[in-house]
């Protein structure tokens, strides 16, 4: 499914990723753990096409996407601090990818409601982004990424900044949603407990 082969990346003179390879099977959730600065986020950004690697290739379903711009890769990403669009409502955020894809309004509204229901936020489509709690914002971010039906979903420390109780509840929910939708995903975390709970497999970066 997703193949990262021999990827290296550096900023200025600092080598962040050094000949790294990773394989993820279809429907598999791989947790990527490692200390801060080990290059977890950089690897996600290379896969998403937000950072150009110095060398190496990324293939999805056997197709080399290394030279493709981000918007043509069909690789979704849940950002560490959500990055919800502040000028759009909850529904506008979740429906963003559908609108870009040209889905008619009526159909889009239905799909948005379906996704909100999936993440446990039914009825919140009209809510303003700045009126969401921390947990709700993370659920919206997940729904927004799933709307694009990406081939691979990248989650960059998706549960940071939540208190323990909420963190644990959301962790179980998100893991269940990924499982239920057979989503192929890479989940970056520095929390080994979280990694063990959500992933089929754990890969470690040093």
């Amino acid at each position: 499914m997703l193949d990262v082969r021999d990827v290296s990346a550096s900023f200025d003179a600092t080598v962040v990723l050094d000949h790294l390879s990773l394989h993820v099977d279809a429907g598999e959730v791989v947790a990527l753990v490692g200390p801060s600065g080990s290059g977890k986020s950089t690897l996600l950004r290379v896969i998403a096409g937000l950072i150009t690697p110095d060398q190496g290739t990324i293939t999805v379903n056997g197709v080399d996407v290394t030279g493709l711009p981000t918007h043509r890769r069909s690789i979704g990403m849940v950002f560490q601090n959500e990055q919800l669009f502040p000028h759009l409502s909850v529904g506008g955020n979740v429906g963003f990818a559908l609108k870009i894809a040209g889905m008619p309004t009526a159909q889009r509204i239905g799909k948005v409601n379906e996704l909100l229901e999936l993440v446990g936020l039914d009825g919140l489509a009209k809510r303003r982004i700045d009126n969401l709690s921390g947990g709700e914002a993370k659920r919206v971010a997940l729904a927004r990424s799933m709307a694009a039906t990406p081939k691979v979903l990248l989650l960059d420390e998706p549960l940071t900044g939540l208190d323990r109780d909420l963190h644990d509840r959301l962790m179980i929910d998100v893991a269940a949603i990924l499982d239920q939708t057979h989503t192929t995903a890479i989940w970056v975390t520095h929390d080994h407990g979280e990694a063990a709970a959500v992933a089929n497999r754990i890969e470690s970066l040093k």
Partner: protein
Amino acid sequence: MDERRHPLKPNQLPRWSLIAVTAPPTAFLLVFYVWPFATLIANGFNAGSLSDTFGRSATWRVLWFTVWQAAASTTLTLVIGLAPTWAVSRFSFPGRRALLSMLTAVFVLPTVVVGAAFVALLPGSLDRSIWAILGAHVVFNLAVVVRAVGAVWEKLPADLEHAGATLGASPLQVFLRVTLPLLRPSLAAAASIVFLFTFTSFGVIRVLGTANRATLEVEVWRRATQLGDLGGAAVLTVLQLLVLGVLVAWTSLVQRRTTHVLDMDESSSRQFPKGKERWVVGAAVGVTLMLVTAPLLALVERSLRGDDGYSLVAWQSLDNNEIRPGLRLNVDPLGALTNSVVTALLATILAVVIGGAAVISITTLGRTGRWLDTGLMLPLGTSAVTIGFGMLITFDTPPFDWRASWWLVPVGHGLVAVPFVVRTALGVLRSVDLDLRAAAATLGASPVRAWRATTLPFLLRPLATGAGLAAAISLGEFGATSFLSRSGSETLPIAIERLLGRTGRIFQAQAFALSTILAIATIVIVMLVDVGDSRGE
């Protein structure tokens, strides 16, 4: 407990000192702003003048021209300004700071100089066209767009745009659906500022306009000083105030509605442009640099162009206004230079004394001080033409017939400059820790002594900055001066406008030479202020 709300009562400055710092700015404001403004409004609501003015088709033509040229100038400035804004807010490149400084330098230039620069730049057939006016307005106001929109753009989290891309949006779609909506409040702010400036454009239009291309401001001047129709001019002034009032109310409403809470990226992530970006950034920067430097270079070049080839004739003849032996031109270029320097000096001293006293009063009086603060800001929101016109029709009867007084022009300039002195000094003075004064008091210093030891030193630097700004404002002031200037004591901007209106290559070249002097003086002063400011920080 908040010290500020409970000032050290027994240690307060004595009453006499408060009166000494409060009375002069209050009297200055009442006599030279409030009274003329009230006179002007009273004149504007005269029934006869109202029906006369609104019954004239010329009034509507002027209003229409004022609105559409301002709308066109604003649109063009936004469209042209977007590319350099993108370049300076998203990328680091050699010359980035130079470009920003250049834009600011043009923005602070006197309006008459920018008008003159476009006369110098454009061929004769175009220099009085609408294109010259729009061009001057765009070049002038590019800095507003680049600064106001750039401040937001460079702090927009790049990950918001990345998020758009991971959701399948192409770079263009990301720009249209993510970036642009987030920039909209800042674009609206920039647009309303540019519209305000161009709607009240006076100097540029006086130099580049024609009888059919006059803004309300120019028409006020024409009616008041050329046609003697004071009533009509007052009506037009009130009309302009109404339009501007509506505009300001509307924009603040729109601002409030479209503002989003944004987690700004405080560490701006400017990068060196890569690959194809390099060409686009280069083109945006190159075109902008050309737009802002070409008029200024043309100014210098044309000042050196004589009847046959390049020469210094215009520069050398600045002390000579003889057209033919025995026949003199009613403009004295070198005299204007002297007048401008003297006027700027007086206006600066006045603005610093009045502004300095005002900030001491405002910070000491607490809540009551706010009235003075607001009052002294009013001249900033009033066009210089309105200020000059108000003074002209107020001080025309004995014992207040001051129209022929040498000091009226510096007073007008001082009035325009005081808000800048107050704004610069007030913030600094408010941030002085009151405990310092308390400490001095416990060491045996009297309230006045304690104030002098702990607060006065902080006041000197902002007052110096304010003085620089006041000098630059006075040197370029044209609106109020057009009403208050006496013949024989013309300042540089007045002389430039007159010389440009003359036929004859030498007069034009002299105008360009004077404009060059004025441009350099203004830029040098503003640079000094800037350097002083950054050292202070």
